[in-house]
């Protein structure tokens, strides 16, 4: 007696393999589709942030230049304060020396009161020497500021480099596309730039004031 199977007869190994492959392909296609959708969304977001990024990266050299200007301006101001302090120090050293000589002379001719008063003046001047030295050492703030600024400049230049790489790799720069609103940072940089080129010196300001009747 022949028993017929109610099921279609299949070659077990080949058909199972085909089913597995078909199933695997479907899953793969689904995942590829998901990946494609994800990539497309990421690229769209990159393009959205691209224009402001390009605009901001163009401002970074300006920011670096202003930071370096800061170093230069603080250095110039500090050197001027030092110059004046040194003049005062030298003048005081001479005055102390002269007064001490006068004091000795007065003591020699027995003018002790006058000698005592002069000695007090010499002591006051000597105390001020310490204050003047403290002013000089306090000016070392400029060195610390300059070091911090140099580190900031390095960071800004590094960020600029990386932004440029992004722009190049993702092709974000579009010809003829105006930059989006530059925001508060951009405005402040513009004002800084303007103050460099349009700020007037005191003598010119005085000239203009006198034209308006200011005496």
């Amino acid at each position: 007696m022949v028993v017929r199977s109610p099921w279609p007869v299949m070659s077990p190994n080949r058909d199972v393999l085909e089913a597995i492959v078909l199933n695997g392909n479907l899953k793969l296609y689904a995942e590829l589709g998901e990946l494609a959708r994800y990539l497309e969304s990421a690229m769209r977001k990159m393009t959205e942030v691209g224009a402001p990024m390009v605009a901001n990266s163009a401002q970074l050299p300006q920011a670096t230049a202003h930071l370096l200007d800061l170093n230069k301006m603080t250095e110039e101001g500090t050197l001027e304060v030092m110059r004046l302090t040194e003049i005062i120090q030298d003048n005081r050293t001479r005055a102390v020396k002269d007064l001490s000589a006068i004091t000795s002379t007065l003591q020699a001719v027995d003018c002790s009161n006058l000698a005592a008063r002069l000695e007090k003046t010499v002591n006051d001047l000597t105390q001020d020497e310490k204050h003047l030295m403290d002013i000089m050492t306090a000016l070392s703030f400029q060195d610390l500021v300059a070091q911090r600024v140099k580190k900031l400049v390095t960071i800004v230049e590094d960020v600029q480099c990386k932004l440029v790489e992004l722009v190049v790799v993702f092709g974000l720069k579009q010809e003829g596309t105006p930059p989006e609103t530059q925001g508060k940072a951009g405005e402040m940089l513009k004002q800084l730039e303007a103050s460099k080129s349009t700020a007037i010196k005191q003598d010119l300001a005085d000239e203009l004031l006198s034209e308006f009747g200011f005496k």
Partner: protein
Amino acid sequence: MPADPNMKILVVDDMSTMRRIVKNIMKQLGFANIEEAENGQDALTKLHAEAFGFVISDWNMPVMTGIDMLRAIRADDKLKTLPVLMVTAEAQKENLIEAIQAGVSNYIVKPFTAEVLQEKMNKIFK
């Protein structure tokens, strides 16, 4: 041995303001024979050209740092006994250890006062 007021001192710092401050303090302490250098390389050139009794140096400088200059001084037979005082903003423990291992004579952290500089110098030249 106390410091000779006539000895030539080399102040090494890339910031002109800092060099001026140290020079001013040294002058107030009675040391008027001061020369300056902008970086470690410049300093080494001067040290090889003339006889100096003392070096006061910053750490972070372009071309050659203070720590590299110190190592070069200690490696040079003619300069190895030269007292070197580091005056620097590098205030990490690792920096101090590195300076000690490199052979620094003493170490001051910025900002500093004239009294601290004098105290450290007295310790070097006692």
